Structures are given as structure tokens and as C-alpha cells.
């Protein structure tokens, strides 16, 4: 169940990780070993088993839609790498 360097590169692109060719190759080898181990799960017949995504199951927790104070702009911007006029500043998105 090995994973190719191209498959790792595709996952890296989806995950927005800019990785060097060297890192991609190393990751492919290491992830291949992990996926081989994980392949053990295929020994089990799980047909008819209901998936468990959360311990105890999840239920919606509702509250009233009532306004309350939230984080002030200056606090929210305090850790921003770059800011301008009360906004997060990023490189131009639209030409």
C-alpha cells in the first residue's frame, strides 16, 4: 500500500504545504511504511458496522441567538503578521 511521490505532492498541494522534492521523497517513504502498517485494518470485515466518528455520539447543542460582546478588532488584530486600517493585510488576491 505504498504511496508515490506524486500522491504525496498532490496531498501537499491540497494541504497548502510547499515542500521540496527531497522532502516529498522522504515523506513518501515514511508515509508508505505507516500506510503498510495501517493496511492491517483490511484484515477485518467491517461490513454492517456503523462508523463511530465521535465517542458517545454527537448531538446538536443549541443556544438562543442573542447578541453579546465579541473580541474587539484591536484584540483580534494584535497577533496579525501584517495589518492595515483595521484589516488583515495579505498580498493582492484579485488582479
Amino acid at each position, binding site marked *: 500500500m505504498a504511496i508515490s511521490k506524486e500522491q504525496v505532492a498532490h496531498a501537499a498541494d491540497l494541504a497548502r504545504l510547499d515542500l521540496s522534492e527531497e522532502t516529498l521523497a522522504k515523506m513518501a517513504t515514511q508515509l508508505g511504511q505507516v500506510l503498510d502498517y495501517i493496511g492491517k485494518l483490511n484484515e477485518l470485515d467491517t461490513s454492517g458496522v456503523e462508523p463511530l466518528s*465521535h465517542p458517545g455520539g454527537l448531538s446538536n447543542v443549541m443556544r438562543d441567538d442573542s447578541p453579546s460582546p465579541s473580541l474587539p478588532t484591536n484584540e483580534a488584530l494584535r497577533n*496579525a503578521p501584517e495589518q492595515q486600517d483595521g484589516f488583515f493585510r495579505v498580498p493582492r488576491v484579485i488582479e
Partner: protein
Amino acid sequence: MTTTLHEMTAVELRNVLRSRKASAREVIEDLFDWIERREPDIGAYLALDRERALARADEIDSLPPSERESAGALAGVPVALKDNICTTDFPTTCASRILQNFVPPYDAHVVERLRREGAIIIGKTNMDEFAMGSSTENSAFHPTRNPWDLERIPGGSSGGSAAAVAADTATLALGSDTGGSIRQPAALCGVVGFKPTYGRVSRYGLVAFASSLDQIGPIAKDVSDAALMMEVIGGHDSRDSTSVTMPAEPYLRDLDRPLDALRVGVPREYFGEGLDAEVGAAVMNAIRALSRIGAEVREISLPHTEYALSTYYIIAPAEASSNLARYDGVHYGYRAANCDDIVTLFARSRAEGFGDEVKRRILLGTYALSAGYYDAYYLKAARVRRLVKNDFDEAFRQVDCIVCPTSPVPAFRLGERTAHPLEMYLTDVFTIPANLAGIPAISLPCGLTRSGLPIGVQIIAQALDDARLLRVARALEREMSWRPTHRPPLPQQAQEGRRRSATSEPASRGPCNGRSLQR
């Protein structure tokens, strides 16, 4: 018997403070003097603040006698926090370059509770980056060393918290446990580590790793201290939608209540291949101790145990790949320089900001969730997760709790497992099942190897049975009388210990500089 202030448990320290045998200032000064001596060797902390701790101590000391009782359950007790728990007065870095200078705009729920109860937060502890690892070697800043043997790892990912409590450089600490990150380092450092039932402690302000698994819990010198901490941090919080709607229980008050007709299960799957012989023998000793105190011990089976690790290494990375998408170099944290477009900014900030293990898990999780692979990986794992939980449900129809090793091996050497991620992952083989099932589990010390390394025994109970689990742990701890005779050696003693070679005699506590008190 004399005990210095920094050696005391939180319960002992609380009595000393309440009876005014020592002031909170004296406690903090003594502790920081000790930290200055021990921390250079161990490296348990990422941040410490002596001045602010002293200021807080002075506030507590200045309370008039009439208000002292209401100063809180932990008034004047020094507490260390794993650095993935948000604090407004310390950076919260998750031991990652991507959050190196991040100072959260709010306190975590557990931090609010601690402050309200008078605890003095002395610093933030080292960890594997984003809690991904089992040795604390994945910290972007520095490794932490095991106080019992400085050539060895303290376990992880809450390795800083466990090492600090073991070395008496924190009285009490918090960690987080996604696949064993509280219990495994506690076992390897000879202290108590408790992962409560999923939802028992609010995760509001805990930096998310794998949200269906993450839980905050105490790392403590003994079970009483773990129970005391649980009284402070447990209970409902509406800001965490998975929070159980039950108040904290009086865990400490009820700790010594007798256990009647206790049935203990020993799962045969936990005593097979890969278990270190000395670890196995020490855990069997603990099981005999449970028999001596009247428990009925029987063998049980958890047949899907061998699949739990594989299940975890799909589910946890899948959830992590989603949770860690928020680190984008835009809102907070590290931003790569000179990026001309937004996608390059995201991809380079993340590549430069995250370490290798975090990247590995993001890639693994992204792959397992990606089109064409979701059914084969994530869905398959979610089905096996159900089978693992069913095993526990079945077992708890026969027994009240399950006893097994915490870690298959004692502390290993720095660098020993870093080249092979899978070998590192195997360290968590006995702790992961409790996270998958969302049930409470505790590790407590049960012996030392011939070379003087601590061994932990794990007790697992059913969901929401935290109070009884703590009582079982306390009864076992009392029967095994571990503390205060077993302490990590001080550096000069460690050298003597190596010269004495293979004696199993635990190193006793030597003279220290701290202020002594009659107990």
C-alpha cells in the same frame, strides 16, 4: 521527616499555606530557586515568570484572615501548563515555530478555573509540536530530558509537564491527551497522569489537535493531587459543545471511600509480544496488590486491541489536517517573507512554520480524506473504532475497571526512535484505545527497572466513572507505597547510581538547598 516546600504535594502545600506555616511568597521563592538549579539539565519549560508569580503570591498573602478560606482550592499552589493551553499572560506556542510569538487574546476554561481557585501559574511546559509525538523531541525549541536519566526522553507529548512534576519544579501540572500524551509521559517520569472521560473537562482554549480524541487532564505527584485538580477543572462549560452537562464531583473528598466488590479485568492482549519483561513484571505486581486489597481479578479479552493504533493513525491525522488548516500566515502566527500571491503565502508559511512530524500527519490526514481514499481509510477506521469501543462495552459488563501497562517500554534514549516514525507511534499502543472509546484512564507509578527507570500501570474505566477510577488508583497507590520514597536522583546521585550499577534499590532523596519544614 523533613520535606522542602517544592517537594510537597499540592494537598500538603495547601495545608502548610492554610495554616500559615509558610507564605505563598516563600513557596514561590523556594520553587524558583529549585527551578534555577534543575531546569538547565531538564528543559521542562518554554516560559517561566518568577516576578508575576511572586506578585500573585503577595496578593494571596495579603488577604485578611477572614478571606483566606475563600481564596480558593489551590490558593498559592504553583501550577505549570502545557503550552497548548491558552493563557493571556504567556505566549502559547504549541512548541511550534508557527505560533512562536502568539499571545492568545483569552484564557482557556481550565485557566480561568485555576485563577479563580487561587493557583499560581508559574510557566508553560515543553511538548511535542502540536502534541504530535511521544518523546517531546518534536518540540521546535529544545528537547526535554527525563529527570530519572538525563540521557533519556521524558515521554510525550506532555513531556515538559511530566518532567517538571517529577523533578519537583512544578507542584502540579496540566497536560493534554489525544492518544496517551498525559499517561505515557507520566509513566516514563514516575508520576500520576489522568485522562478524564471525553467531555469531562472543557477544551475551550485548548489548541485543537484531533477534536474527537483531545482531553485535558492533570499530571500530579500522587492521585490525591490529580483528584484535587479535577475538582477545579472538571464540570460543564457551554463554550465546548462536547462538554458533559454535569458539575465536577468531589473527587478528593471521596477518594478514600472504601471500594466494595471491585472487579478488575486484565486484558490478555496487553501482555503479549513487544512488552518489556520488566514492565510486565511490575504491572503484574500491581495487579497482585489489587488482589491484596480485595479486588476480584479476572482475565478478559479486548480482541480489537491490535487494530487500535492503525485506527488512530487515520483518525487523528485526518482531524489534525482539518484543525491545522487555520495556520495560514494571515490572522496570527508565522508568515513567510516576500510572497507575491496568497496561495504561495499560505504554502510557504506552513512549510516554514511546521516541523516534520506535523507535516507528516497533515499529509497523512489529507491523503486519508481525499477523493477516492475516504472510504478505504477514514470510513474504514471509523468502523473499526466502533469495534474497539464495543470491546470495552463488552468488558465493562464483566468488570468495573481494566488494568494493564501504560507504555510497553520504559523511557528510551534521545534520538533512539526519531528516524522511524512508526517505531515512535508504537509507544502509544496501550494508551490509544481509551481515547478512541472516550473513556477515562489513569497511569500511576508501579516500580522501577533494574537501571532505575520508572514503570507505569494504567487503569481504565467506563465513561463518566472518573470518581471511582480515581478511588481505585488511590487504593492501589496506598498499597504500593511509592511516594515519597521513590524520587528521581539528583545529578551527583545519578553518577553514583551509575557507579553502583545494577542495584534495584531506588535512589533516596538527598539534601537540597530548599527550605525545610517538619511534616
